[in-house]
């Protein structure tokens, strides 16, 4: 009788004060990820494991510039990438060009021999916005329960571009030099952002 009473009492106690909680795995993962998110560590891995290898997916700059000149909307449909709803879209682009101008915050390239017109402009000043985060299609907002984490990636990626990519670009950017680049362009206003294409590069090298 006493044993049964103790067992019942224990059962009631455990009901109200359980020794453990069963939590769905996706929810558990989410709370761990939310608590532990480290944008610098994330971008470290993303940069080497996905971004640099992903460069092969970029559209050729000569092809893109020609497509934009022919028909902006068709070029956007074929090569552009949008995130969510709105007028902003991105191009993920790679190419080789000759430096035709060097300004304080950008380097102008021509993609064709003998031309002096700037067709693409590589940014060399402070980098803002989401060009690389959203332009490659390699990162998805839905993988980040808290959008502050997703936004922190933009700052981290932009900082890395400024520290690891732009110093080399500034060094090699002399008029007449040839530069190979891979990067992304954010198109917020088609009247100003397409001619020339303003690219945030994440790879620059002498070919």
């Amino acid at each position: 009788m006493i044993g049964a009473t103790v067992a019942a009492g224990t059962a009631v106690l455990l009901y109200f004060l359980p020794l453990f909680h069963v939590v769905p795995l996706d929810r558990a993962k989410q709370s761990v990820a939310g608590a532990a998110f480290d944008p610098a560590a994330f971008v470290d891995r993303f940069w080497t494991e996905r971004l640099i290898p992903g460069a092969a997916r970029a559209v050729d700059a000569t092809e893109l510039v020609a497509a934009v000149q022919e028909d902006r909307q068709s070029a956007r449909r074929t090569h552009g990438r949008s995130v969510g709803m709105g007028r902003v879209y991105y191009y993920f682009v790679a190419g080789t060009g000759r430096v035709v101008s060097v300004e304080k915050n950008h380097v102008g390239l021509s993609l064709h021999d003998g031309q002096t017109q700037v067709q693409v402009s590589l940014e060399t000043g402070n980098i803002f916005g989401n060009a690389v985060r959203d332009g490659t299609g390699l990162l998805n907002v839905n993988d980040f329960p808290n959008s502050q984490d997703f936004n922190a990636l933009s700052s981290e990626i932009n900082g890395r571009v400024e520290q690891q990519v732009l110093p080399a670009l500034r060094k090699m950017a002399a008029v007449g030099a040839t530069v190979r680049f891979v990067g992304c362009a954010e198109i917020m206003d088609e009247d100003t952002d397409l001619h020339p294409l303003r690219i945030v590069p994440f790879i620059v090298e002498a070919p």
Partner: protein
Amino acid sequence: MNRTSFRMLSPLIFLLCILLAGCGGGSPATPAGTPRIAVIISTLNNPWFVVLGDAAKQRATRLGYDVVVFDSQNDPAKEASHFENVIASGYAAVLFNPTDADGSIANVRRAKEAGIPVFCMDREINATDAAVSQILSDNYSGCVALGQYFVKQVGESGKYVELLGLVGDNNTWNRSKGFHSVVDRYPDLKMVSQQSADFDRAKALEVMEAILQANPDIDAVFCGNDAMAMGAYQALVAAGKDKQVKVFGFDGADDVVKLIAEGKIVATGMQFPKLMARTAAESADKYLKGDRDFPQKTPVAVELVHRGNAGKYGDYGRKEAE
């Protein structure tokens, strides 16, 4: 049945009645058979959210639902009570503008467990497994653009103030961080004060008055929403400093867009409350008709509104777009 056995059975009968009433409450339709949608809004004390709530109500009504709008008054306890009401009353879906990115998750989960789908509008919750979808303003990117314009207008040196929104809301920090991701790169731009005014016009007026007492020589004020921008502008006018201090807002409220066109406020970020509300209502309708294919988060781009393009905006959107 004798009197004694009736006395014994009466509590059981009473309990059965309650259970049956509870089952009736689980039906997603009113007695007339029209399914009901709840629109739960963080606060209706701000015109922007009134537009969001009204647009959600209008679209859901046009889609054939009975719609009731609930005002949480920026109070998570009131919001929780609205959800209890919605669950007990058997609504078919909730179009939801949360008060708190973390605190509101439990309410959404409770609705989900009761079989009521929830569609977040404008503000997110920090979970991707609770709501069916979240249509969210891309506050961070909008404020990156606003920050760049701020530097262009104010210059690379000067003193400024920031008025923050509700500190528990992700939008507050997405806006602030987007802005600072730009402005903090200019070390001679000094933030002399950063205070919360809870997205509220009257509070912003009060806070700005106090800030101006201690900092009469500021060059600019960045406000996390347009209601606060209006409050700050009002304080500046009263202090005779409206020509000296540049005001920046965020939201795209009609009164602010008008003041931008007149050159009195410098810029704002246009969000699209009507677009977000309509999309949420249409998603709820599709869901209730069997569709289950929804992206969890859909960011909606924010557009910079300044004196040069203010004429293209109005009525809480872009004139030709909405």
